[in-house]
Structures are given as structure tokens and as C-alpha cells.
């Protein structure tokens, strides 16, 4: 259908049907939570899971399998990278919901509907970011992802720790958004367009004003670094991981990282590839700082949640090594391998992080919520399944051979060495070795520290045991059989970003 006087054709809604469905389900959950009886509140959880399953089905059916579809005047891009990352997002959010179901019912009894609605709005934001074709959509998606999370952090209203974390996160996050918007405006000024692929074309035809664009790039990269929690923009990470309700910390530590990775790939590789020399140098500084600070500061932590926060800083640094080493002397030959290594690293990290917080959520009250490492003492006896899973996840994060983390680190390092930066690879290995200390300490505390007096066995529902074990097993198996996921990462990138 075309309207002649505005030269406007009605857009094709089909590529975005998953987003539309999720939005519909959000409204449905809000209405249901308004009218539903107190006893039947469990339905909300099922509705939220149904939203994710439906979205996954729609993403699969709408997928063009290797083609790049654009809709809404180029604002929306549906390609294979978007499909794969969206499916990963649904999976992690669904895990989040399963793990935190009992926690939410116990800790946030009044705000259950809001918890599910806000988390799904954040999911919608991630989906928008992942398949954005324009800087405007990227920015709106990023806000849609962050705003509900600020509110979720503060949802536990009687906790002053949560209020402090929410305030810090909100103020710093608003600052980062402003940075990012300023950077985008500079890039708009330099190239005269907001369409991501048109930005790249503008540079290749030598129309872009390079100096102004690099100036904007500085702000854009700092915004990305803030959202990923890279040093020196990491101040919020430990406080938020520690202060937020556990289920929300679980959410923050996993799925949003996938969306921000997609943001970085779309902006830096799709849009600003002509400036790769410049952003490579900026990212390099961030990567080295994050790996050093994250690993060294994590050693000193006595709180498991803070330790995971510093570990996430170091992991995000390691993950970006792939993006840094994609370009060799302006040649993008190594790009697909390097970026797919990053993507593999990210996906396995997200799975491990969700699992680690999942185990914490399932621990009984004082131990899980406070997250003190001493509270994990004797977990091997109190709950063998939880302890075994945690051990697997810690081994994987430390990069011990034949767990997923090892293969992820290995493939990123191969890309770094292929790019010829041996010192960078050596540095990464060194900091990983430092990191192994604090991961293994957790295993030691769980299995070899004496049980505290009066400690009882932990009762976990059978279904949760199965889920936790499956999560740990997935991390272990991905290390032995990484090929399938690696193949998907390479294919999805070669059919979309590098098509």
C-alpha cells in the first residue's frame, strides 16, 4: 500500500513480528497482573515464558536464513546475526525467569507483575538493539533496555543497598547515554546520515569529515565501554551486582551484554569500519585496563557477587580482544574469525554467568542474598548438585582445559596471534592465570572448607536441580564439542555483517 502524497509505502511488518509479539505480551501481563487473584499469581511466570517461547518461534519462522531483510525505511535489520543473538537472549532471559521464580515470589511479592513486565521490556530493548539499522533505533533500543533495569534494581524498596545501587546505576547510566548521544550527533554532523550502512558508504566515498567523526567516536566508544562495564567505566558494576536483588543481578550480568556486543559490532564494524584504526586503539586501551583491573581487584573480594562483578569486567575485556584483532593493517581478512571468536566467548560467558548467579539465587536466604564467599563453605556437602555446577562454571570461567571457557579463550587468542600481537596474547594469558586463582578459591571453599555449625542440607526442588545441572553440563559440553556453536557464529556473521 503506497500513499502518493507522502511517498510512503506501508512497511513490511513480518520481519519484526517477534518484537510486536513481545510488546503484546508485555501489555497482556500488565493487564493480567492488574486483575488476577493473589493466589493465581504464578500464571504471570507462565505468561512471561510463553512470550519468550512465542518470540523464539516467530524469530525462527521469520528468519530469512542467510538473507538480510530491512524494514521500516532501513530502521530495522533482520539478518542471521540478529536471529542468533535474539535466540541467545530469549534463552538467557528464560533461564533468568526459571531461576528467580521462587526468589521473586518470596522477595518481591507485590511487584511480581511489574518484575516480569519490566524484564520483558528490557528484553524488547535488547531485541531492538540487536536488529537496529539506524543510530536512532540503536539509541532508543538502548534506552528501552536500560530504563527498566534501573527500576528493577530499585524494586526491593526496603533495602537501602538496592536504592544506593539503583541511584548510582541510574546517574552513571544517564551520563553514558548522554555521551553516546553526543557522539552520535557528531557522527551525524560528519556524514550527514544516521543510517548505519550509509555512514560507512559516506566514508568510502570520502565525503565524511574524519576528524569530527573520530571526535564523536571517542564518546560512542566510552558509551559502549560503560554499558559493557569496561575499565575505566566500570565503577557501577560491583555496586550494582552487589546491591541489586539477586534475580536482577542475574539479569544484568547476562543478557544485556549480548545486546551491547551487537551494538558494538553494528556501529564499529558495519558503520565506522573506515575508522577502524582509531577505534582499535581506543578498544585496546580499554581491553588491557579491564583485564588488569578486573582480575587483580577480584582477588581481594570477600563477597562472591562483587567477585563476579570484577570477573565480568575482565571477561568483557577479554571478549573485546577479538574485535581489536580483527583488522590487520586495515585488512579485514581476519575479521570473521576474530569477531566470531568474540561472539563465541560472549555466549559461553553469558551462559556461565547466568548459571553462577542462578546457583546463588537458589541458595537459602542469608547465604545467597548476602553473597559472602564464606557462606559457600561446605556447599559440596550441603547440596552436591549446586556445588558441582558451580565448580563446572568456575572451571570454565578460569579457562581450564576442556570446559567451554577454555575453548573460548583459545579461539580469541588464536585471532590475537593471527593479528601478530604476541605481547597482547601473552598479557591475556598472564591475566587469565591470575584470574584462575580466585575461581579455584571458590571451589576450595565449597569442597574443602569445614561446614559451619548448624548448617543444614539445602532443599532444592527437583526441577531446579535438573535445570542447574543442565546449565553446568551445557558449559562443560560446549568445551568438548564447540564446533556447532562456533559454526553458527561464523555463519551468522558471514551472512550478515560481512555479507
Amino acid at each position, binding site marked *: 500500500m503506497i500513499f502518493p502524497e*507522502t511517498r*510512503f509505502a506501508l*512497511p513490511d511488518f513480518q520481519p*519484526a513480528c517477534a518484537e510486536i509479539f513481545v*510488546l503484546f505480551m*508485555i501489555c497482556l501481563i*500488565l493487564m493480567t497482573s492488574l486483575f488476577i487473584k493473589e493466589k493465581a499469581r504464578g500464571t504471570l511466570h507462565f505468561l512471561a515464558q510463553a512470550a519468550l517461547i512465542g518470540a523464539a518461534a516467530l524469530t525462527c519462522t521469520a528468519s530469512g536464513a542467510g538473507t538480510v531483510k530491512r*524494514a*521500516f*525505511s532501513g*530502521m*530495522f535489520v533482520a539478518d542471521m546475526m540478529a536471529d542468533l543473538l535474539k535466540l541467545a537472549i530469549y534463552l538467557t532471559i528464560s533461564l533468568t525467569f526459571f531461576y528467580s521464580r521462587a526468589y521473586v515470589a518470596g522477595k518481591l511479592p*507485590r*511487584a511480581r507483575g*511489574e518484575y516480569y*513486565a*519490566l524484564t520483558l*521490556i528490557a528484553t*524488547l530493548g535488547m531485541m*531492538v538493539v540487536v536488529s537496529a539499522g*539506524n543510530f*536512532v*533505533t540503536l539509541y*532508543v*533500543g538502548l*534506552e*528501552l533496555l536500560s*530504563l*527498566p533495569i*534501573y*527500576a528493577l534494581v*530499585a*524494586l526491593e*524498596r526496603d533495602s537501602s543497598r538496592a536504592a544506593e545501587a539503583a541511584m548510582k546505576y541510574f546517574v552513571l547510566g544517564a551520563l553514558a547515554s548522554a555521551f553516546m548521544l553526543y557522539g552520535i550527533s557528531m557522527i551525524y554532523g560528519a556524514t550527514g546520515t544516521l543510517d548505519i550502512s550509509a555512514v560507512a558508504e559516506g566514508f568510502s566515498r570520502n565525503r565524511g*569529515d574524519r*576528524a*569530527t567523526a573520530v*571526535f564523536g567516536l571517542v564518546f560512542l566508544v566510552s558509551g559502549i565501554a560503560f554499558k559493557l562495564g569496561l575499565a575505566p567505566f566500570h565503577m557501577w558494576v560491583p555496586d550494582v551486582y552487589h546491591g541489586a536483588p539477586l534475580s536482577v543481578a542475574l539479569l544484568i550480568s547476562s543478557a544485556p551484554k549480548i545486546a551491547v556486543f551487537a551494538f558494538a559490532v553494528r556501529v564499529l564494524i558495519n558503520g565506522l569500519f573506515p575508522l577502524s584504526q582509531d577505534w582499535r586503539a581506543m578498544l585496546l586501551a580499554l581491553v588491557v585496563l579491564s583485564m588488569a583491573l578486573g582480575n587483580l581487584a577480584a582477588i581481594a573480594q570477600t563477597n562472591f557477587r562483587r567477585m563476579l562483578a570484577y570477573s565480568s569486567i575482565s571477561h568483557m575485556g577479554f571478549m573485546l580482544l577479538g574485535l581489536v584483532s580483527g583488522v590487520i593493517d586495515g585488512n579485514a581478512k581476519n575479521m570473521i574469525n576474530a569477531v566470531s571468536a568474540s561472539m563465541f566467548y560472549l555466549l559461553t560467558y553469558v551462559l556461565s554467568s547466568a548459571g553462577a548467579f542462578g546457583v546463588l539465587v537458589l541458595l537459602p536466604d542469608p547465604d545467597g542474598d548476602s553473597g559472602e564467599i564464606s557462606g559457600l563453605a561446605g556447599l559440596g556437602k550441603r547440596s552436591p548438585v549446586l556445588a558441582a555446577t558451580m565448580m563446572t562454571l568456575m572451571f570454565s570461567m578460569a579457562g581450564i582445559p576442556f570446559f567451554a571457557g577454555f575453548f573460548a579463550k583459545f579461539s580469541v587468542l588464536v585471532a590475537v596471534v593471527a593479528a601478530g600481537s604476541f605481547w597482547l596474547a601473552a598479557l591475556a594469558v598472564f591475566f587469565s592465570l591470575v584470574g584462575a586463582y580466585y575461581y579455584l578459591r571458590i571451589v576450595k571453599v565449597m569442597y574443602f572448607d569445614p561446614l559451619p555449625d548448624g548448617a543444614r542440607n539445602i532443599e532444592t526442588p527437583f526441577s531446579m536441580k535438573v535445570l542447574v545441572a543442565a546449565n553446568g553440563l551445557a558449559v562443560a559440553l560446549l568445551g568438548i564439542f564447540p564446533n556447532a556453536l562456533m559454526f553458527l557464529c561464523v555463519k551468522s556473521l558471514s551472512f550478515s555483517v560481512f555479507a
Partner: protein
Amino acid sequence: MEFKTFVFYFLSAVLLYAAARVVTLRNPVHAALHLVLAFFSASGIWMLLQAEFLAIVLVLVYVGSVTVLFLFVVMMLDIDANRMREGFRKNMPLGLGVASLMIAEMGFVFYSRFSGHVESAARQAGPEYSNVKEIGRLLFTEYAYPFELASVVLLTGVVAAVALTLRGKQKNKSVDPSEQVFVKAGERIRILHMPPEKME
């Protein structure tokens, strides 16, 4: 110097002055009023750029509602300005150093780029050109997708505000008229059957 250039520099000077006063004034009400002044000068600059719709919206939305809200909040909250200023003097040298470094760097980039560009490069539109129409057309055609998403951002705001402030149902003493009408005498008065007392 052309008159337009003069107006631009005048408005910019007022804008910078007002913005600086917003940060430095002791009295929060005065600071909010200076914010109004800053918005007005910014909208004047937009008017110079022929973005009259945005200029009007800036005045209507920011001056008309946002600042009023600021004033309400400032007047209702009991903010101890002196406590907020704790550490101001201590941290000022570092802050000033970083800020001047940033400004110098930014100025260096921009001065080499734009020195000599006095007039904006944008085309001058004819008198029949309507800003409102053009923005409306773009919002509802090309930018329809982010525009709709912005509405979800607003929904988030509503849900978050309710979730963070609503403290359950208040126990109020209102009555339901239909129940009042159908009430029977027996429900209001308890009739007791007492054996009559005998006179001695």
C-alpha cells in the same frame, strides 16, 4: 558583522551565563529560574536555525512543564544546600583541571575544523516550507518505528513509577452505595431478647 551573527553571539552569551549560574547558585529556586533563561536562549538559537517548531516545543515542554516540576520538587524537598556542597572546594582543582583539558582538546578539534564557517551550511528554506508538516511526515513515515518504541519507553516510565511508589491498597473508609441501599434493619440493629425483669 551581520545582525544575525550578532543575535547568535548575544543569545549564546546569555545561554552560557545562565547555564553557569544554574550550577553555581546557592538558592535552588534561583538556579531553576536560570534554567528557564537557559532554555529560552537555546530556543532563540534554534529559531535562528529556522527550526521554529523545535524552538516552540522547547519553550512549551521544558519551560512550561519540566521547570515547573523542578520548582515543585525543589520547594517540597528540604534540601540542605550546604551539605550538598561538601567537598566542592576540595574536588574543585581536579575538576577544573580535567574540564579545562577536555575543553582545550575539544576546542582544538573544532577550531581547526570550523574556523571561518560562520553561516550554517544548511540550505535556506523558502517561506512556504513548513517545519511542522515536515517533522510530522518524517515521524509518521520514516521514523515510525523508533517513534512507536519511544511510546514503549513512556510505558516503562509509567510502570516503573507505579512499581517504585505504590505501597499496596490504602485501607480507606469509603462505603458502597448499593450495599447501603440493600441493607436490612436486622443487619443494623441487633435485637436482643431479654427476659423482663420482675419488680420485687
